[in-house]
């Protein structure tokens, strides 16, 4: 709870003939992370399939699976943030798995062939459409010329150019081209631009092109076009319509095919991935002709479970050793709802195996801070409503986690809302159980600073615990307490709350702490940032006040219109409060996150732990 799950390094020796069964059992149990053992690698797989082949099969099936996912799964904003709506594991019997792997090649090949064919047709269609669109654009530029564009084809002694030019350049251009034997025809069409046709003699073409370029002449590629622009335009539009219809048909056909085969490819992909993972772990074993050894990490509490399982699968021909070391991977373990907050801790990084896991504190104080900043009964209720909607709409793990976090945040906002008397600001005119923040902001700031003091000190205590565990010096942390205790005594004396002798004692303790701090230059910087960190908690009061004031303003503005137009007043009221609830919730969430990440975590958290990744069936339920 306060520290990650206790892990042990496990070494298992068994007969090489049992390795397939052993690795399969490990995957079934899903509690051991197999570690690489350097040295000779020689193995046989339990399904007699070559590893390279399986890896390539996995990559091929993954490509198809991802392509199909793009069609099968929604990719809206909500899905991007919270994952796919329905997340369920592929369910299979153990003996069916081997059949899936054996058929995988056939399935993947069939789908590759089919998707490649349709994909190619869609690609060709796209290319043709682009070409036709280009011709349509060209014909639109030239539609004012009523002649066959074949006339613009260059001949043996003459050339023809078509293009467009800014209107204001025409007179000067005409002057520059006056000495050439040309025919120039211009037609104004749009945005002060002119479509231009230039006919001239072949030997002068180079010079004329240079002059045209000088005036920013934009050439049209008309070579190969036949017929009048109007006709080309009409035919182009018809062809584009036909191509669009063909594209729709191809996409529909592709979707139907994907829907038909989706379950098959999902099953194949998940099973091939499981076998690939198994074989990758198998490669990490140290092997001789008769004996194999595996090394890995596992939670200490499952020791008996793994011993029993491997004893069973090898008929007792197995030998175990367990060892406690400090370089184990991190597996967070928190009780009840606090487990949901592991995702927030993980957002910053994982603690190292021997370091403290702050999730349990975060699970309590994150909602407290959020609620303090939002502090409105009705806004809190809206957050709870959002939490339930999220749970109802999404059936995946991530959405489940966030809906729980929001639920606690909403309850906290309601709690603080009752204390401060905020029900859509002052709309209901009810008094709070404690005090009103808008009438007593100083009190709000004091509470925020007390939160800060407690929170930062919790971080220091965790740092001390962590250092005692790893047998490091705790002097830097203890000096904080001296500075704080001395500082508090000095402040109390200023307000006449303690005797004079305690003031001198406070001074002594304060300066002892400061001397311990400034004994190293870096600690001096820490001393300044320490006070900055505590002051930073004023944001709790600032955001809480801002939420209350915006709510008051919305109520006030809507009340101005209530006698004139009830609908307008209601509209301002609804939109205003929804807006306030949204921005204040986002602000409260981000700032609560920040207070934990910056002010709290910076006291003890390094976040350089490596995640515990046991060999298991991912997305697969084996019966």
């Amino acid at each position: 709870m306060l520290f990650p799950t206790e892990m042990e390094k496990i070494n298992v020796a068994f007969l090489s003939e049992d390795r397939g069964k052993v690795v399969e059992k490990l995957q079934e149990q899903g509690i051991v992370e197999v570690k690489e053992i350097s040295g000779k690698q020689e193995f046989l797989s339990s399904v007699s399939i070559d590893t390279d082949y399986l890896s390539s099969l996995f990559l091929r099936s993954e490509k198809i699976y991802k392509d199909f996912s793009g069609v099968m799964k929604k990719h809206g904003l909500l899905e991007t943030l919270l994952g796919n709506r329905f997340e369920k594991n592929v369910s299979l019997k153990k003996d069916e798995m081997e059949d899936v792997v054996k058929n995988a090649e056939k399935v993947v090949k069939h789908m590759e062939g089919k998707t490649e064919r349709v994909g190619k047709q869609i690609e060709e269609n796209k290319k043709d459409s682009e070409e036709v669109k280009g011709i349509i654009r060209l014909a639109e530029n030239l539609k004012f010329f009523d002649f066959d564009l074949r006339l613009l084809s260059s001949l043996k002694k003459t050339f023809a150019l078509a293009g467009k030019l800014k209107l204001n350049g025409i007179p000067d251009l005409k002057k520059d081209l006056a000495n050439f034997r040309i025919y120039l025809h211009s037609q104004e069409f749009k945005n002060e631009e002119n479509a231009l046709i230039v006919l001239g003699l072949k030997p002068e073409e180079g010079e004329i092109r240079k002059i045209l370029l000088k005036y920013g002449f934009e050439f049209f590629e008309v070579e190969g076009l036949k017929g009048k622009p109007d006709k080309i335009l009409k035919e182009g539009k018809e062809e584009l319509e036909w191509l669009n219809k063909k594209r729709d048909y191809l996409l529909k056909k592709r979707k139907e095919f994907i829907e038909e085969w989706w379950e098959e490819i999902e099953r194949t992909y998940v099973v091939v991935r499981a076998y690939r993972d198994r074989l990758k772990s198998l490669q990490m074993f140290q092997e001789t002709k008769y004996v194999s050894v595996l090394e890995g990490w596992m939670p200490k509490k499952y020791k008996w479970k793994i011993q029993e399982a491997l004893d069973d699968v090898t008929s007792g021909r197995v030998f175990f050793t367990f060892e406690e070391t400090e370089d184990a991977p991190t597996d967070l373990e928190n009780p009840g709802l606090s487990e949901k907050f592991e995702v927030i801790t993980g957002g910053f990084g994982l603690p190292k195996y021997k370091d403290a896991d702050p999730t349990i504190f975060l699970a309590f104080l994150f909602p407290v801070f959020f609620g303090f900043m939002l502090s409105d009964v009705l806004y809190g209720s809206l957050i709870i409503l959002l939490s339930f909607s999220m749970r109802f709409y999404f059936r995946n793990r991530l959405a489940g986690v966030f809906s729980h976090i929001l639920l606690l945040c909403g309850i906290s906002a309601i709690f603080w809302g009752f204390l401060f008397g905020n029900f859509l600001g002052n709309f209901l005119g009810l008094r709070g159980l404690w005090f009103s923040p808008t009438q007593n902001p100083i009190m709000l700031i004091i509470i925020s600073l007390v939160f800060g003091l407690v929170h930062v000190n919790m971080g220091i205590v965790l740092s001390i615990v962590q250092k005692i565990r790893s047998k490091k010096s705790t002097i830097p942390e203890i000096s904080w307490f001296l500075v704080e205790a001395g500082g508090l005594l000095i402040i109390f004396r200023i307000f006449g709350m303690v005797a004079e002798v305690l003031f001198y004692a406070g001074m002594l303790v304060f300066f002892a702490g400061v001397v311990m701090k400034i004994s190293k230059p870096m600690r001096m910087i820490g001393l300044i940032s320490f006070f900055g960190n505590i002051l930073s908690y004023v944001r709790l009061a600032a955001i809480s006040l801002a939420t209350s004031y915006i709510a008051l303003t919305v109520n006030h503005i809507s009340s101005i219109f209530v006698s004139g137009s009830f609908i307008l007043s209601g509209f301002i009221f609804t939109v205003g409060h929804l807006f306030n609830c949204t921005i204040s919730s986002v602000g409260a969430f981000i700032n609560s996150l920040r207070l934990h990440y910056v002010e709290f975590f910076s006291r003890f958290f390094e976040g350089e732990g490596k995640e515990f990744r046991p060999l298991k069936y991912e997305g697969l339920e084996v019966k």
Partner: protein
Amino acid sequence: MAIEGLLAIGAGIAIGVAALGSGIGQGKAAAAAIGATAEDTKNFGRSIALAALVETQAIYGLVIALLLILYGAGVIAI
């Protein structure tokens, strides 16, 4: 001009300038943070922390503004 008016102007300047500076800084930090998160989503936590770091200056401005207003209202004495 009455002292209350000057205090209100002072409070406005205190929070206004602090928020302006903080806003400019946070804009730059947030842009870099988004870039870092786009490169690797594991950077999200640290990016938020770094982007939000600049906000503290605005909080200092707010504290000064509140102190001035409360002094003007006679709630506190300096």
